[in-house]
């Protein structure tokens, strides 16, 4: 099995997004891990301001830095892509 981010990390990320954006009508379990967070396909539909809020929340919560917005666009595409990034950053410091 290829190691990767845990389900728990993905749930944590979903809770963080919902809490950061003050969303009250979406349950973390309703958010699809794979579907894009932008463009209306997912239960959560975000815009560029939300994206910046999430980047800053991720930086604070996981002590990571997402400086480059082109990279940021790739990272915050979906819950899974965020989790992959956090997982790879955590792995760097645990090696």
């Amino acid at each position: 099995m290829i190691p990767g981010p845990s389900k728990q990390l993905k749930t944590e990320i979903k809770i963080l997004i919902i809490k950061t954006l003050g969303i009250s009508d979406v349950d973390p379990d309703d958010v699809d891990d794979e579907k894009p967070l932008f463009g209306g396909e997912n239960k959560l539909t975000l815009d560029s301001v939300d994206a910046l809020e999430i980047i800053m929340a991720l930086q604070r919560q996981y002590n990571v830095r997402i400086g480059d917005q082109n990279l940021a666009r790739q990272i915050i595409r979906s819950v899974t892509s965020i989790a992959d990034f956090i997982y790879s950053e955590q792995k760097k410091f645990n090696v």
Partner: protein
Amino acid sequence: MIIENFKHKMAAHCESGTITSLLNHAGLQISEPLVFGISSGLFFGYFHKMKSFPFPTFIVRNKPGQMRINIAKRLGIKFTGYTFHNNDEGQRKLDDLLKNNIPTAAQVDFFYLDYVPTWERVHINVHFIVVIGKEYTDYIISDSYFPELVKLKSNLLDSSRFAGGSMSPRGYIFHVTGIPSTVHYEEAIIKGIKKVCFNMLHIPVPFLGVKGIRLFAKKIVEWPQLTRDNEHLSHEIMKINILLEDQGTGGAGFRFMYSTFLQEAAEILNKSELGDLSRQLMEIGDDWRELSLFAARIGKNRDLGSEKIGQLSRLIMNRAEVEEEFFIKLSKVIKKI
């Protein structure tokens, strides 16, 4: 045909990313932050009343094209560039260069790049891409904003190269024609930093450098009087976020990229003070990002009363104070080397 050994890479900014890709292909292993720093890319300018801008705006980098000029001068690199009077001539020259396996950078209008999602496509005449091949009527493009190579129809590349309006590219293309056998990074880094310190602290123009940030802080309180209505004001205030974060700035108006450059400079020059300053600039960048988010939030929520605009003004003024202190320190460290 496609130039097989060209390595496509994403970058934080189109111009520094394009130059980096061309130099890497030509055999000079240099990072994008180093290109940005050596070419004195970091800047600030506030334009309250200018004919070319319908509304006050600001810039956070030096003028388009200047990075290439500065990096050439400071590292002894030779670029050859061409502009054209007609489109056919422009396409022929590009095709000739590709036939000779020469990756060629092109200045283009972003609007015609149909691989960009429609909602992101705006008329900006100063986007840079690298053309690395042609298959029938499609050009193969390395656009540093995209994770993979993309294709663009020749008529669209033509439209983007010969778009009219402000800073029209006139078909401009350039490529590397010479890399010196020995590259002296140390001297180039020092010159690059000195120029940025001069631009931020001493340039004798009241709207540039730290003086420009202060002017921005003072003048933004007048923005409500310059706008048609609250919608227009909200649009202009949210543009602050776009200019700082969303236009290939590497984050926080290029402050994060310059911080990475200072870290690399600290290692090359073996000067730990530059490493300390790199960390300080990263924190300064974090606060620019907070400011950017504040502007985006109040714009999005249409919460644009005088209290909020005043708060935004104070945040900008604070950036001026902090950056002045930072560049004085950087200037002192670099003078001692």
